[in-house]
């Protein structure tokens, strides 16, 4: 009598699953880095009219954080977070360097036919003249779309 064939051993092919998970991990690694860098800790001002938006809705953007420098009120530092096409780049600039950076970035956006937006995240206590450096640089670089980050609502520290 013929013996029944031995049942074939089933092995699960995990390779495609590993591929997909690797892609997801790389995506979240990059997203987490971008989000963390763009949300450099700074005490933002409060505005009732501020709209909550998803970061992805801001489109192609360069984010500039204006914070008080160690030297006191009269000085400020500019932390610029940008995507250079390959990776997230974070740089701390002095006022004189903001202009050239935005001009170069605007030129690259124009070459790539992208509409560039500048997101200004300024500490609530910095002097207006420090933010004005960014506004002037945006004007010179022909970046017309500028948004200011603010906490939505009223300042809990100040009386109504």
């Amino acid at each position: 009598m013929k013996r029944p064939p031995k049942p074939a051993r089933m092995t699960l092919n995990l390779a495609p699953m590993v591929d997909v998970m690797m892609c997801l991990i790389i995506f979240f690694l990059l997203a987490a880095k971008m989000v963390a860098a763009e949300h450099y800790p700074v005490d933002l001002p409060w505005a009732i009219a501020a709209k909550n938006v998803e970061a992805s809705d801001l489109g192609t953007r360069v984010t500039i954080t204006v914070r008080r420098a160690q030297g006191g009120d009269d000085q400020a530092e500019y932390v610029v977070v940008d995507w250079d096409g390959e990776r997230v780049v974070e740089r701390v600039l002095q006022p004189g360097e903001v202009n050239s950076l935005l001009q170069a970035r605007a030129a690259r956006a124009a070459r790539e036919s992208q509409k560039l937006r500048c997101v200004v995240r300024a500490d609530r206590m910095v002097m207006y003249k420090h933010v004005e450096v960014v506004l002037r640089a945006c004007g010179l670089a022909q970046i017309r779309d500028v948004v200011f980050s603010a906490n939505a609502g009223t300042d809990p520290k100040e009386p109504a």
Partner: protein
Amino acid sequence: MKRPEAAGEFVPNLAPMVDVIMVLLIFFLLGTSLDLVSQGVLQTELDPSSGPGAGVRVEINPLIRIALADVGGGESVRIYVMEEPLAENDFEGLYRFLLDRRRAGADPANPLVVGAETTVRWKFVVKAMDAAVRAGFANVQFAVSFRAGSIGG
């Protein structure tokens, strides 16, 4: 003579790797908080005629001008509208004033220019912009800098 056994097929065990990747994936899924991704923004468009080499300057009237003068070294501000001090020197008063202007027929697309002395704190400038946006003015612009003490004498 005994023949050597055929070499068995080498199959790497992927299960531990999958375990580790799953843990990493869950970590990043939870770590990338959605609260961080959303942010509050106030939007504006810069005056295209600003900066050197700009085109012909076009005056659009009526134009609402708001100026902020520093008081007490950054402690507070004095609010001026059309070069006149605002009766209620607070941002709710500015909001009510602008709302009255809107109800009186001011075009929300007309430019509203916010200017501030260089030493004014950014939070006050944002409050002025906030009052304008809440009152319905969509075209908020920023004026060139006023030196400290130049507004209101």
